[in-house]
């Protein structure tokens, strides 16, 4: 469509130049002219489409219970809200720019807090970068280190931005799947059953591999990578001299006594790992958009360069609020009063509630070890109602979700969105639910499920 209008405008621009059109004529022509040149940069090729836009739009149009997008519908903890209030009503100079790479009290607490967790001496001025959300951290890392032709290993299913970010940096995504191992009859699947095949993983590393993106706890599956699994990845990264970009935004959301392990804490990994975290997921305040990267100076300096040439500073007051909140958590660390203890306890209950509820209509959940989400198998629906409305090649899970929003009043996200195009046809039978929701939302969900169940019975 654009190429046609470009051709027309090229013709018109040419004729204008020859005729020296008067002001009103040129205004009229220019109203409809678009530039003859190709407008967008090539780096945007293939990355303009965003599946979220469609589903968020639908969710807002129907009276549906939103279990789709990953954000809490309950408030952040009181101490965090207070921290924000302090930041916005305190020293008026907090309304002005702060240090570009991070508000000093925030980088200081990040360095001390995570230094302990990672068993590493972390310099707040050289090993820490504050970013606009973990999303911004990922972008900065890709832009700093991924070059034209570099390969980036991405484990499927993956948080959907890893692929376009790799492409925008000129890199080639190389996918490797987590594969479900078969469960016994009657047993619910668990995210721990989804595993990498070590031989397959090793085969993905080539001389062109620049980085591997790890996400633990994983979105959408909720898998918490075990020490053995991380050691496998670490061994391969070291063997092939590859960087590890590890997205650990859900590090506090782990259940059933599982342990989150940061790969940067394994021997030989600190010097080749960028560890990404999120205040939004840590303090249930996704709207603050504060994230961070921790890593060795020789990698961080390149992220600083991208940062100073892209956004330069992050908002000051949100950083101040996060600093105060982290300071509070440091004091309570490991104790029952810690938010990092209370939140996963509460969310485990929500998870269990939702996992139980969805089974009543024939959805088969995969129990997550961590994160905000679980996926549910919709194969039974696929065989009973294979012909749901949708575009010709539209994966089944997307058609199912649209149907479910319109007819059953529940929003989820189709898991094929988290897969590379070739894999989408193999993984079109799962939908993702977010359980980090208020009691009232879970009750509303139960009501919709009950109606659905009744309709099935009738």
């Amino acid at each position: 469509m654009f190429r046609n209008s470009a051709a027309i405008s090229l013709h018109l621009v040419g004729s204008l130049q020859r005729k020296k059109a008067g002001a009103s004529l040129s205004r009229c022509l220019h109203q409809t002219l678009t530039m003859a040149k190709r407008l967008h940069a090539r780096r945007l090729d293939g990355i303009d489409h965003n599946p979220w836009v469609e589903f968020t739009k639908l969710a807002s149009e129907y009276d549906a219970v939103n279990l789709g997008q990953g954000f809490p519908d309950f408030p952040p903890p009181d101490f965090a809200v207070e921290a924000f209030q302090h930041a916005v009503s305190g020293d008026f100079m907090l309304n002005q720019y702060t240090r570009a790479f991070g508000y000093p009290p925030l980088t200081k607490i990040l360095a001390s807090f995570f230094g302990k967790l990672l068993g590493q001496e972390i310099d707040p001025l050289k090993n820490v970068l504050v970013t606009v959300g973990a999303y911004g951290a990922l972008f900065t890392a890709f832009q700093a280190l991924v070059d034209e032709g570099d390969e980036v290993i991405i484990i499927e299913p993956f948080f959907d931005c890893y692929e376009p970010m790799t492409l925008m940096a000129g890199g080639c995504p190389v996918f490797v799947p987590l594969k479900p191992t078969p469960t016994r009859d009657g047993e619910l699947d668990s995210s721990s059953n989804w595993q990498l095949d070590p031989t397959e993983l090793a085969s993905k590393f080539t001389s062109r591999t620049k980085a591997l993106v790890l996400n633990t706890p994983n979105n959408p599956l909720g898998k918490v990578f075990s020490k053995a699994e991380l050691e496998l990845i670490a061994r391969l990264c070291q063997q092939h001299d590859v960087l590890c970009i590890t997205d650990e935004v859900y590090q506090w959301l782990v259940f059933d006594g599982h342990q989150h392990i940061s790969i940067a804490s394994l021997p030989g990994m600190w010097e080749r790992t960028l560890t990404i975290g999120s205040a939004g997921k840590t303090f249930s305040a996704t709207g603050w958009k504060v994230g961070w990267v921790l890593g060795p100076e020789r990698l961080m300096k390149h992220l600083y360069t991208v940062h100073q040439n892209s956004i330069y500073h992050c908002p000051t007051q949100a950083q101040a609020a996060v600093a105060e909140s982290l300071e509070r958590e440091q004091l309570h660390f490991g104790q029952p009063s810690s938010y990092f203890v209370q939140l996963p306890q509460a969310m485990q209950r929500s998870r269990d509630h939702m996992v139980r509820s969805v089974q009543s209509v024939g959805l088969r959940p995969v129990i997550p070890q961590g994160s905000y989400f679980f996926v549910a198998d919709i194969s039974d629906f696929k065989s009973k109602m294979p012909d749901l409305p949708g575009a010709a090649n539209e994966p089944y899970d997307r058609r199912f979700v649209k149907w479910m929003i319109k007819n059953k009043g529940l929003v989820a996200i189709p898991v094929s969105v988290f897969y590379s195009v070739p894999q989408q046809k193999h993984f079109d039978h799962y939908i993702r639910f977010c359980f980090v929701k208020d009691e009232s939302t879970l009750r509303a969900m139960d009501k919709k499920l009950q109606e659905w169940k009744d309709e099935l019975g009738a």
Partner: protein
Amino acid sequence: MSLKFKNAKRIEGLDSNVWIEFTELAADPSVVNLGQGLPDIPPPLYVKEELSKIAAIDSLNQYTRGFGHPPLVKALSCLYEKLYQKQIDPNKEILVTVGAYGSLFSAIQGLIDEGDEVIIIVPFYDCYEPMVKMAGATPVYISLRSKPMDGKKWSSSDWTLDPKELASKFNSKTKAIILNTPHNPIGKVYTKEELQLIADLCIKHDTLCISDEVYEWLVYSGNKHLKIATFPGMWERTITIGSAGKTFSVTGWKLGWSIGPYHLIKHLQTVQQNSLYTCATPLQEALAQAFWTDMKRMGDPECYFNSLPKELEVKRDRMAHLLESVGLKPVVPDGGYFIIADVSLLDADLSDMKNSNEPYDYKFVKWMTKNKKLSAIPVSAFCNKETKLQFEKFVRFCFIKKDSTLDAAEEIIKAWSRQKS
């Protein structure tokens, strides 16, 4: 060690940054800081109060719409519809970004390709050059030049572009020109004729215009800020960038916006959805409220869009007078909150400043910071390598400072002049 740990080519050579160096220098609390462009005056009370109120509203602690919080894009579209005299679609023709800096980045990443040329007017806000290079494009420079002064008062309007020279910079590879009006650091407010000249060339060569208008409200008596996007044929090829930080004296909120036709904005939106996805919610809500407050009283002297430039004009005149009184030759700005001055007449003894490869103004500022406890920014920091010599006698002072800061600067400058006489 490993080649794999080397930076991506796109940022090769872009690691140094003038601000990092000079902010560190000025961080000493005994230094009177007229360097970096940030106000040390508080933002208006109602702006602070809005943000305070909002901190208590729960729903604003979670993600909002990626391309801009609905109440904010609505407020922006209402405000700018008046100024553009045309309807502006809040969802398709506006993008909210992390400061105007973020808008510049999104515009350049979205629209500028490897091999493109981008015209940059010297002196330039320093990020334009590295951003254009990071996009793989070639900056093409043209300098503002001053006409000879003949003892008259030096004004930013005396600095102009030579029309023939400007025309010679455009060719078939020229993807965009970056315009900054009011201009940082000179404070020039481009006139209708000057903008028409640029517009004609953009249309003739089918070039985009990225117009950085962060100081749009800071225009002094006898001058009017004009938007190039309102000129015939320009809306469809212009991205106009604005800043909450400069509009409401809240640089730390880091909110900016790009306004333009959908066929351009959509590419900036693509960059946004692949870079940071969304900006902070509570700040956007507070900004929306601040806009509504001032939009309701745009004709009023109380409206911040009117009161701030009035307040700053007084400070501008004070700074200009002060600099003149001590033998510096200031260029009185028509807009913005900076003033540049030729410091060469002071003939300061910079012999103890090492690193003789640095331009004169770099050495001067470092010497002045260290010895006079007054900081500023060297104007050659706003020049490319080849043009640094043209501007190395100039230093930039920021005057959006409280009276006590300007008093302290006055003390230093007067003492300095007493020393010399």
